[in-house]
């Protein structure tokens, strides 16, 4: 079996295994897995409204996945997407609700603010990695919690002691009457086009520019890159900043599209952590991210239909997603299994 086939088979086998174990969990807990998965399917594709909401859910997942994948290509593990997304969400909501500008300036400015806030949150771990060789995993985890508490404090400050920011002005909104009517009045908004545009931007940076070549080169081997005359530290910082900007834009999807404001949060959104799953399943390639985001975004939104339609707690889908990550991460053993299988066939 060629390497390419195996690379595609590992995620597919992981998805199937995840769904099978999920079915077993449902069976053991006394639920009907068939009814469960039918409810899930209908929750995703059941009607135009469901499809619209599913696509709406996919947009932030694409951006979160891109953020993780981009840093991965430079050899960095950005667990901080969650925090970067939250500061982006707040920045977009703040700029969108505070300023009064014509749409042609206001909307791009709000998006830019979100990207800048996320980039700033990515800059800190990047700087620490480049200057002090501090491992980015721990720093980004800590930055997540700093973001959570800081954003909550900022919401309180800008709303004069309240628990949510004011609604954004229509001039900063990504909402679209056309898309909404097309999908039976779902909250589908133009964010999906922003997300897809960023996929193309990522592909362009990584595959068609000198900067992208350097970023990937540092990811493959930083010593060799240094020897070849590249500035490794600059590339590490740049990678974290771009990654953070994508995550911040993911937050803007929620602020300017779905919710129109930001409410005080007791915990994380989960989108950032799911972004790790998205990137992992998509093998850190831009096209793979679309695939991973579509799968996990659909699962996450479709799950909302399970309690009503099949009386199954929607957490079953989180269990399935976690298991898929687990199996993809354990890809080594799947590869070994596939090779054994291939050898057996040859022997026959």
């Amino acid at each position, binding site marked *: 079996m060629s390497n390419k086939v195996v690379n595609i088979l590992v995620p597919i086998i992981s998805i199937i295994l995840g769904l099978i174990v999920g079915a077993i*969990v449902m069976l053991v*807990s*006394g639920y009907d897995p068939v009814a469960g998965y039918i409810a899930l399917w209908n929750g995703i594709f059941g009607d135009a409204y469901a499809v619209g909401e599913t696509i709406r859910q996919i947009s932030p997942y694409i951006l979160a996945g891109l953020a993780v994948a981009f840093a991965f290509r430079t050899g960095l*593990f950005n*667990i901080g997407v969650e925090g970067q997304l939250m500061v982006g969400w707040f920045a977009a909501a703040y700029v969108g609700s505070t300023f009064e500008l014509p749409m042609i300036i206001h909307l791009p400015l709000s998006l830019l603010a979100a990207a800048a806030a996320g980039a700033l949150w990515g800059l*800190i771990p990047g700087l*620490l990695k480049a200057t*002090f060789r*501090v*491992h980015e*995993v*721990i*720093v980004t*985890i*800590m*930055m*997540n*919690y*700093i973001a*959570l*508490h*800081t954003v*909550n*404090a900022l919401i309180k400050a800008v709303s004069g002691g309240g628990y949510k920011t004011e609604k954004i002005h229509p001039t900063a909104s990504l909402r679209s009457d056309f898309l909404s009517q097309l999908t039976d009045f779902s909250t589908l908004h133009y964010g999906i086009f922003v997300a897809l545009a960023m996929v193309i931007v990522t592909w362009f940076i990584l595959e068609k520019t000198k900067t992208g070549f350097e970023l990937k080169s540092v990811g493959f081997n930083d010593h060799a890159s240094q020897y070849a005359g590249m500035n490794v530290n600059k590339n590490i910082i740049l990678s974290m900043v771009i990654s953070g900007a994508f995550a911040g834009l993911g937050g803007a999807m929620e602020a300017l599209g779905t919710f129109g404001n930001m409410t005080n949060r*007791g*915990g994380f959104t989960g989108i950032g*952590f799911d972004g*790790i799953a998205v990137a*992992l399943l998509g093998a850190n390639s831009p096209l793979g991210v679309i695939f991973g985001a579509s799968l996990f975004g659909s699962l996450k939104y479709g799950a909302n239909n399970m309690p009503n339609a099949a009386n199954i*707690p929607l*957490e*079953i889908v*989180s*269990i399935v*997603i*976690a*298991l898929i*990550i*687990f199996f*993809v*991460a*354990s*890809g*080594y*053993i799947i590869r070994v299994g596939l090779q054994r299988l291939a050898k057996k066939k040859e022997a026959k």
Partner: protein
Amino acid sequence: MSFLEVLYFIIPTTIAYAAPLIFTAIGGVFSERSGVVNIGLEGLMVMGAFVGIVFNLFFADTFGSWTPWVALLVAMLVSAAFSVMHAVASISFRADQVVSGVAINMLGIAIALFTVKMIYGKGQTDFIQEKIARINIPVLQDIPVIGPMFFKSVYGSSVLAILVAILAWFIIYKTPFGLRLRSVGEHPMAADTMGINVTKIRYIAVIISGGLAGIGGAVYSQTMTGDFGHATINGQGFMALAAMIFGKWHPIGAMAAALFFGFAQALAISAGSIDVEFIQKIPSVFFLILPYALTILALAGFIGKANAPKASGTPYIKGSR
């Protein structure tokens, strides 16, 4: 409140908040010392908190006032079993340890909430009747000033946490097992050459970390919240991870760091009521982010150099150089 009254309130609160962190951080020390990064501490704590509460609710009639302690034991066993997943993935299947840990975190909260909804039909459990009791330590509580601060109405679990930290120090630094544990984390190939079973030691270490994180979670839910819901464990596992790093991968250091983080949490909830103008002026958000900010500073080398075990995070593949 006068300054002394403040201390009488702050110090017991500090210790109460610190105890779950101490258990979990010590667990982290065992795992990382053997060379396995355990980001999954949060998920393991969630599992412990969940099992502790559910067991407590079901068996309160059977065990009476001993219920919370039996619940700790059961939580330890279940979380230890759960951590085997992380061990299998990161040791035998050579998975990326961080990714596997992230999966453990997602899985822990998902399984716990799924089961809670299955049993109770709602997002959180009922409240437990048998909480971990506060005790007065005889003789020591009569010491003037210090007595009421440290030895009056403390949770038994807090005393246990400090004993576990000392025991962990003894095991890691004074026993053959501890020496093997550290050597496997620093240079697994050298350890293997000397006849140490790297895989076995790492499995044991991860399972210990799972058990201790389970106790930590169950202590938190049975002292602080009294029920289990989606936000019961909200970052305590990551804070324990931070305490382990801030404590420089040393059991006693981790305990001290956990106590300090507990102090920051106690200040965050009580800063407004303290009659010291300087503290009142500081917004509570600064106390909330203090543990995380300090950990970043510690890692950057501003507060002494923090060095991780050398082989931490890399799977050991026999025969590879």
